């Protein structure tokens, strides 16, 4: 069989297996959607008035940030899922089968992507209820969602490498999250970056999260007349976002697959 076809078809078998787990434990899904709903409501009503925005309602400005932060944090489920499979010996069984070496990771990242689709859908409905609107028409709206999901998928591969490296579900639970805090908070997700000192500002402006958030705001017409980063990140956020996503995938897909091959050979 052609290796690419085999990777995809084996990957789909593994993805189905992961989805069955979600079906059997619906609590998992309920809790993974409650948290984003809480975020939307908290930011909309608690922080809502605290940060002045120009040319755009803060709730609208904020929504792209909340979406991006949520899918970034959501990537941790990839690490947790893989660590669990390693710990329970499932990966040993898979590794003794004549299946594609990439299939377990493709399957895991695919089922996590589908999980993300649902989370984003729930958040969008919640956002619409609190007053968030998209202004640039259908196609740009879809483009924004696709960019968000592409970023989520890329982050999932970063998380996969973490999950395969830690080998214990408990460690994966914290290791999967920790690095998300500086990454998401040192960005334009919740605050305009021009208030930061010059060094932090440069870091925040080049942060991939900032590029994604700004690109989505532009696509959805939620950017208003807020100050933008100087230079390239401010002028071409969409291009920069795509470069980031491609770069993350190019680095982490091969690294994770290599790690998977070695993971069980402790």
């Amino acid at each position: 069989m052609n290796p690419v076809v085999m990777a995809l078809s084996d990957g789909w078998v593994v993805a189905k297996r992961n989805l069955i787990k979600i079906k059997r434990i619906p609590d998992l899904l309920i809790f993974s959607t409650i948290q984003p709903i809480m975020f939307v409501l908290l930011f909309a009503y608690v922080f809502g008035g605290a940060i002045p925005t120009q040319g755009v309602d803060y709730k609208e400005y904020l929504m792209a940030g909340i979406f991006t932060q949520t899918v970034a944090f959501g990537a941790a489920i990839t690490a947790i899922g893989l660590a669990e499979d390693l710990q329970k010996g499932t990966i040993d069984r898979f590794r003794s089968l004549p299946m594609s070496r990439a299939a377990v990771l493709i399957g895991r990242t695919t089922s996590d992507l589908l999980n993300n689709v649902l989370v984003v859908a729930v958040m969008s409905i919640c956002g619409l209820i609190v007053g968030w609107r998209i202004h640039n028409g259908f196609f740009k709206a879809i483009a924004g969602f696709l960019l968000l999901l592409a970023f989520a998928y890329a982050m999932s591969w970063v998380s996969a490498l973490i999950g395969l490296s830690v080998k214990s579900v408990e460690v994966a639970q914290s290791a999967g999250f920790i690095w998300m805090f500086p990454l998401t908070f040192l960005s334009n997700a919740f605050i305009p970056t021009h208030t930061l000192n010059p060094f932090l500002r440069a870091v925040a402006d080049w942060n991939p999260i900032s590029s994604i958030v700004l690109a989505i705001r532009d696509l959805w017409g939620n950017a208003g007349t807020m100050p933008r980063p100087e230079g390239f990140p401010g002028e071409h956020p969409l291009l920069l976002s795509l470069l980031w996503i491609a770069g993350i995938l190019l680095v982490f897909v091969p690294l994770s697959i290599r790690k998977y091959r070695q993971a069980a050979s402790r």
Partner: protein
Amino acid sequence: MTATIQAEGIVKTYGQLRALDGLDLSVPEGTVLGLLGPNGAGKTTAVRILTTLLRPDSGSLTVKGIDVLKHPDDVRRIIGLSGQYAAVDEYLTGYENLEMIGRLYHMSKRQARERANELLERFTLTDAASRPVKTYSGGMRRRLDLAGALVAAPPVIFMDEPTTGLDPRSRLGMWDVITERVREGTTLLLTTQYLEEADQLADNIIVIDHGRAIAEGTPDELKRKVGGERLELTLRGEAEVATAAAIMRGVGTGEPTVDSETHQVHVPVTRGAPALIAAIRELDAAGIEPVDIAVHRPTLDDVFMRLTGHSTEDKTTEEQK
């Protein structure tokens, strides 16, 4: 022709510890090799290396002539593995587990479905087929895991302690399944801690300890080395020992050993049951009523006693030092 499973000089170290220390083994086509050894002997390590899960530090190994280290993917196509710890998916049903494995061996949907149902029946799991494995007992999981190794009807199968944790009936059922596979031409390597099991199933046995083979041969050869079965008699008091020893000499094949402290008399026998009956008759005629009389079959511990001069327990304490 080289054997179906062939390994030479396998070494695997974990830091200071030599888990495998130059293990050689060879399993001709259609035969069963029993790897017999106590905890920590290196059985699982050997199985993991032979099934491509682990790379050895050195050594060469082939399965059906395919170099395991150079072409692991080709090897995976022709082997089935059931590891020491059941690697079944808790959230899937028994059926879904087997069907998934079938799909990953690249069977068609229909083939995978039929094979799953067939195996569920064979392993008496049909009633539980549509329940998530989470609700299975330990023995049921074990059986499902073993079924997993047979999904693709692979010509070479590895089983790491296949009957540990099974009740006596399931164990016999498992032996049946294994014997049936072998009759159909499957080559099998299994590990066990029970001499009795290796005796039942294996054509050849390798006893390993500290990652090295310490004895090798057919079950009969090995039992001859350890002395086969033994009649063990415990008496009420010193007075009866001499008469009893004479009777035991008569039914046994060698000189009886007498322990005057515990009033025990042991004698090697060729066939346990007839010897037992003869001994009881004669003891009764002599008016001796023993506290206990039994046939003792050699265990792994006896093998160790004989081969290394220490029991398997000693080894563990030695390790802890």
